[in-house]
């Protein structure tokens, strides 16, 4: 709204709209409506800055603050500075995807095994094992980053810093998320189905392979997607364990780039990161929805995702 619009005499009806809005918000009989307004404002505050950042990745000019028209300059067209043509940016994209793919493929089977073990093992070691699994979720990342950094420099120096260390680090904090997703499913499934299979003559191994694993499949697919998203979003562990320019990931590149030489190409790079993260999490949501359908529960994958947090 420009200044002279505000100076113009108010059109008739504006004040009654204001009054009506106020009456609607403070209506004491219905639902507490200020909560709706508050929630919508919160959602706008959360998402609009990100959308603006995505928009400036498509800016025609160099500015990250003034819109100069749409272009794909910062993605492809610029011969030196675009994500596609700047080797350091392209490499960061490649490194992030590579790490996330490797992390998901290593962390998921290990996590599924750990979940099976923890959900059914009734021995003396089960309780401490459970606690050990929870720790990576609540340890501040800087502490974990530092600990892993030290261990790869002084103790496992045959591995050293770099891509391998980054994968090992990412897997370490991703395992626990996989365990939580899969273990939740295991509790929901219970032991009856396997028991029935064994009563009908299946060996324990057959019951596991032919009954339990197919029932777990959607949760396992969801774990893969979530492990991918967690790895690609990670900044601190990648930062502590990187060795040289070739092991920069998108988040570490964003960090150094924003501090030294911001450019819309960073917005473009960040938007790509956002796209991959959202794709992965949407996939996870779809798999989890299948879980709920199969259990005959109504409701959505979003609810399933919302309860993931331990």
């Amino acid at each position, binding site marked *: 709204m420009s200044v002279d619009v505000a100076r113009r005499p108010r059109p008739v009806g504006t004040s009654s709209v204001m009054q009506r809005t106020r009456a609607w918000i403070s209506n004491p009989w219905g639902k507490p409506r200020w909560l709706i307004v508050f929630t919508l404002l919160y959602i706008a505050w959360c998402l609009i800055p990100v959308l603006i950042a995505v928009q400036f990745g498509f800016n025609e000019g160099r500015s990250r603050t003034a819109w100069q028209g749409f272009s794909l300059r910062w993605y492809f067209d610029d011969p030196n500075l675009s994500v596609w043509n700047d080797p350091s940016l392209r490499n960061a994209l490649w490194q992030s995807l590579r790490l996330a793919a490797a992390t998901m493929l290593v962390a998921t089977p290990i996590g599924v095994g750990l979940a099976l073990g923890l959900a059914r093992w009734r021995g003396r070691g089960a309780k401490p094992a459970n606690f050990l699994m929870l720790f990576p979720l609540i*340890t501040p990342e800087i502490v974990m980053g530092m600990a892993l950094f030290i261990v790869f420099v002084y103790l496992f120096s045959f591995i050293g810093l770099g891509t391998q260390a980054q994968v090992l680090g990412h897997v370490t904090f991703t395992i626990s998320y996989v365990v939580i997703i899969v273990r939740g499913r295991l509790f929901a499934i219970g032991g009856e189905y396997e028991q029935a299979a064994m009563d009908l003559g299946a060996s324990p191994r057959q019951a596991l392979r032919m009954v339990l694993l197919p029932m777990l499949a959607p949760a396992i697919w969801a774990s893969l997607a979530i492990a991918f998203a967690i790895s690609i979003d990670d900044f601190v562990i990648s930062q502590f364990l990187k060795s040289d320019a070739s092991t920069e990931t998108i988040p570490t590149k964003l960090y150094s780039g924003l501090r030294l030489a911001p450019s819309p190409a960073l917005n473009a790079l960040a938007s790509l990161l956002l796209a991959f993260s959202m794709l992965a999490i949407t996939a996870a949501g779809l798999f989890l929805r299948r879980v709920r359908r199969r259990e005959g529960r109504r409701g959505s994958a979003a609810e399933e995702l919302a309860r993931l947090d331990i």
Partner: protein
Amino acid sequence: MAGSAEVYSRRRWTWPAFAAPGLIWLILLFLVPFYAILAVAMGRQDPIFNQSVPIWNPVQWDPGIFGEVMSDIFSGQLGVIFVRTIAYVVIASLISLLIGYPVAYFVARHAGKRKVLYLVLILTPFWVPYLMRMLAWVNLLGTDGYVNDALMLVGLLDAPLEWLSGRSDTVVLGLIYGYVPFLILPLFAALDRIDESTIRAARDLGASPWQAFLRVTLPLSKQGTLAGLVIIMLPMFGDYYTNGLLSKSPNTRMVGNEIVLFIESGGGGSRGVALTVVLMAFVAVLMAYYLISVARATKESKA
């Protein structure tokens, strides 16, 4: 589940064998690294090459570097930074709670048919990469950014403000923006679990909506609220990147920035590691609280 006893017992080693790879992984790459930072923090600093020399045998641990760091905390520059970190984290967490609770409450209790839509909307920021969200604010808060433009248009500012050069309010805003979504989810879970009928009972017995909220909903959501606060305070205490992007100034340095500085400056490595151990000990209380509340929640859900 009497019938399933056989599934759970099986052969004695079946289930531990499934868990073994994960446990070995966590021991080698989680527990051992923790021991390694202790060994470096309690080790020596080689004065000639300026390198950390870890001491692996706890009997020979040398508290020298640790002592230096501790005395700097109690009577030096690091003390200021610790107090500042605590202040930032406490303020940011409380404001996050003021923002997060109404939102979680609305989605859990009053969103009605649109609940799923709202859930998706409050889940989205959770999965937007953290650095991307900070980048958004670096753009908006720039000298000629939208925030300055908007504030000048409304007349609140006469000249653009340098939001990004060492302002505490900017850093606290960044922390709030960064961590509110992580608080809303546990809050939502806690509020969503409350049985609608308990609130209806309170209303039927004559409580006003406000009384019902204060006497029923609020106490029932206390556990989830505290757990949610802990969940966002833990990473905030170790945060250095929010500050690094939104301020870069020594005036707003937090403990995490100090740790990273020790590492980057070279030579001070051991002190950075010792400071990490101190930070870890400091947040251990919060972590213990969280683990206890998780254990209690699992016990209750089994009962």
